[in-house]
């Protein structure tokens, strides 16, 4: 059914999104927004976190209004049920990031062993640095030997043989002391997730506070463990990102080129596709088929990984994944894992698009499965690119609609190394700018899209307000793509910032909103925050910093928010997490936790009000520092 202008504008603020929502409707597609409407009203017990289906004596629900049952069959009350459910969300998020990290460690090991043709060590500098952190001396060893040793040491991080994770070495001492005191220092990556599943089994941990504390430890095992390994090993294998220009929105899909769209999270597959797409033989084949080249474009975080290191343009973020197919221009979409809507395969059947799944642990309806393994990834990538090129001729002209708008320019690639590089090698100039007040503080605006919120409205509105008030924004994931589409990621966007931030951006030639990578790369923000705190000999929670996830939807986002708060960063969520069935837990997480961790959560769906809260928080932190 066609949509009215008002319906379209209520769904997204993006120009390309508005065009392709109608195109999708014309083509008879059912999109994520349609399915969300069909699901309404959603279950109130689940929205409040008050339903439990952990065991077969249930499922149980607690009546939040006090009249109906106040305990599940096992006797768990609202607080226990909400805490258990939140704990399992954290465990799922931490498991996702950490499993992603493990896959990269496997490649690192195989590169060292010589069993991963096509992959290589792109950053020996980072390999040596990280190996040293793990106590592995580099002297006299080849990069290959070092890679094997480091992979072995990292594999141990996942197990239970540790007292604490290695990357905690980068955490300020004051923060470490807080974690030790609370008993939430993460020990092993898989251990904390596994223990969370154990604790939330019927009849194990039934103290809601102790469940929540373990939730924080589980989240920390992601932030300073699984995700940290994922980011560092990606840099070792594929290079440390450096500032790079690129473009974003559906206009990056080219009518006269073979379009291969890469979607998911892990760069293992997409980096090999990138290499294959440079192959002269395949380029010649594309030309033979009448195409002017092979055009790669990214979606979600696999896209961000390629963007950060290779400047590959972005087609869009989470809510654009279906609409990208409706252009009729996608000759092949290759997915790895996470955030890939199971609806995509069926949507693609309306077009000529070949849908390819690549991970042994992520299969989808209506997709052809071409499994990637380090040993064969190079040849598999060439095979897929060839298939995509051959599919170019099969486009259905009646279904093709190139984006009417031109791609928006952007700049990405701001790894911690790149930021420090731009500052001349040390965080001192940034600290000086914060001290002088030119930069009031910094905020990580991160997270997903969620059809409950007008697409990109939460991100862009919040970020515009922050930079206007001289607050530097760093971003990752779908939020970063939203900001790029809105034109906030070019050096000229400094004009939109307050006078102080504008001056700093102009002198460094950087945008006021810095792209730090994929959602796993939120640890780059942690790393930077820790480096600033260490340089000042203080704790992260003392700094004028905050985080926000205005449009979050995933379990990974819950884990990220928890490790941010546990690391001392005030965090504002745009959609309410399922905890409101327990007033005690709401109070703990939004108020009392401040006294324990020096940071808390806030929930604020209105991005303008969220901006005001963050600005107030930053003013308070500055005042406490005597600034």
């Amino acid at each position, binding site marked *: 059914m066609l949509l009215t202008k008002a319906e379209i504008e209520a769904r997204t603020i993006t120009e390309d999104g508005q065009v392709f929502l109608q195109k999708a409707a014309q083509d008879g597609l059912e999109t994520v927004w349609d399915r969300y409407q069909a699901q309404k009203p959603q279950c109130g*017990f689940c929205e409040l976190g008050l339903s439990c289906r952990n065991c077969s004596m249930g499922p149980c629900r607690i009546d*939040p209004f006090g*009249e109906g049952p106040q305990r599940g069959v096992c006797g768990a009350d609202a607080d226990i049920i909400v805490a258990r459910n939140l704990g399992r969300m954290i465990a799922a998020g931490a498991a996702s990031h950490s499993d992603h990290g493990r896959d990269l460690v496997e490649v690192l090991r195989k590169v060292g062993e010589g069993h991963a043709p096509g992959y290589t060590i792109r950053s020996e500098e980072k390999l040596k640095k990280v190996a040293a952190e793990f106590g592995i001396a580099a002297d006299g060893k080849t990069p290959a030997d070092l890679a094997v040793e480091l992979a072995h040491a990292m594999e141990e991080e996942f197990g239970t043989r540790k007292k604490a994770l290695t990357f905690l070495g980068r955490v300020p001492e004051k923060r470490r002391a807080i974690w030790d005191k609370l008993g939430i220092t993460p020990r092993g990556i898989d251990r904390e997730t596994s223990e969370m599943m154990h604790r939330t089994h019927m009849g194990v941990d039934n103290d809601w506070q102790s469940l929540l504390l373990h939730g924080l430890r589980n989240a920390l095992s992601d932030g300073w463990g699984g995700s940290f390994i994922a980011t560092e090993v990606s840099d070792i294998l594929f290079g440390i990102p450096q500032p790079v220009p690129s473009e974003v929105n559906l206009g990056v899909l080219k009518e006269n080129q073979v379009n291969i769209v890469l979607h998911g999270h892990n760069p293992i597959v997409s980096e090999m596709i990138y290499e294959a797409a440079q192959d002269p033989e395949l380029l010649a084949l594309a030309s033979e088929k009448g195409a002017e080249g092979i055009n790669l474009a990214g979606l979600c975080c696999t896209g961000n990984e390629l963007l950060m290191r290779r400047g590959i343009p972005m087609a869009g973020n989470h809510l654009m994944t279906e609409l990208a197919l409706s252009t009729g221009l996608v000759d092949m979409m290759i997915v790895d894992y996470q955030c890939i809507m199971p609806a995509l395969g069926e949507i693609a059947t309306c077009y000529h698009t070949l849908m390819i799944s690549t991970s042994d642990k992520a299969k989808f309806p209506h997709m052809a499965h071409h499994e990637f393994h380090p040993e064969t990834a190079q040849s598999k990538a060439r095979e897929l690119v060839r298939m995509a090129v051959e599919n170019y001729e099969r486009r259905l002209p009646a279904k093709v609609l190139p984006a009417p708008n031109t791609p928006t320019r952007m700049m990405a690639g701001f790894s911690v190394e790149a930021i420090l590089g731009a500052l001349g090698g040390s965080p001192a100039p940034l600290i000086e700018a914060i001290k002088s007040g030119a930069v009031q503080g910094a905020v990580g605006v991160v997270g997903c899209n969620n059809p409950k919120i007008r697409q990109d409205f939460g991100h862009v509105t919040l970020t515009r307000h922050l930079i206007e008030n001289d607050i530097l924004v760093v971003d990752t994931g779908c939020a970063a793509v939203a900001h790029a589409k809105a034109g906030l990621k070019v050096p000229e966007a400094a004009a939109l910032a307050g006078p102080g931030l504008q001056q700093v951006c102009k002198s460094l030639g950087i945008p006021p909103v810095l792209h730090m990578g994929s959602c796993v790369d939120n640890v780059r923000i942690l790393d930077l925050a820790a480096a600033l705190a260490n340089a000042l000999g203080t704790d992260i929670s003392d700094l004028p910093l905050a985080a926000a996830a205005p449009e979050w939807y995933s379990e990974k986002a819950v884990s990220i928010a928890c490790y941010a708060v546990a690391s001392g960063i005030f965090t504002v969520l745009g959609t309410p997490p399922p905890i409101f069935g327990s007033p005690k837990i709401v109070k703990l997480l939004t108020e009392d936790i401040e006294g324990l961790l020096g940071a808390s959560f806030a929930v604020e769906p209105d991005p303008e009000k969220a901006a005001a809260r963050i600005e107030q928080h930053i003013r308070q932190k500055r005042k406490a520092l005597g600034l």
Partner: protein
Amino acid sequence: MDESLRERVMVRLERCVGCRSCELACRVAHSQSGTLWGAVMEEPKPRRRIFVEQAAESPAPFLCRHCEDAPCVRCCPTGALRFDETSGLVAYAVDRCIGCHACVMACPFGVVQPGRGDLFVVKCDRCEGRDRPACVEACPTRALVLETAFLVDRRRRAVGRFVEAARLDISEADLMAAGSAQSP
């Protein structure tokens, strides 16, 4: 149907899965804040006017039937409860109520509740000011529907079964033995 008449809520028992979404939606519709997150924090807590009970093996939502010759109206000594000819609903006027609870005892369905605090009696008002009551909107399986939709659905199902039987040449006796036209 006269436009001023308000359609009643009908229950398709066979569709109820016992999720209690109608109960939550009813409370939110009768809360101060009008939102789920606000309603759970309110004091006094908003009351529900619909009840999902377990009857035999089946979950079943119950709410005021707005009877045309209502026992609650007949026994009300002050006229606080009366059948409103315009809307076709049993209306309640709190300012006339003395809180005797004769209506609570008279209702054969147990859906008129003794009030606590400001209201003497709590019962379904069919969501004043809303075309579709909150419970109907909230029902994920469409077990709760308004009467026109209910009747159209029943007729179409019944006709469908008879037409199908005629096509397949099934006898009337077999058709009846196969179950009621009301099964989903």
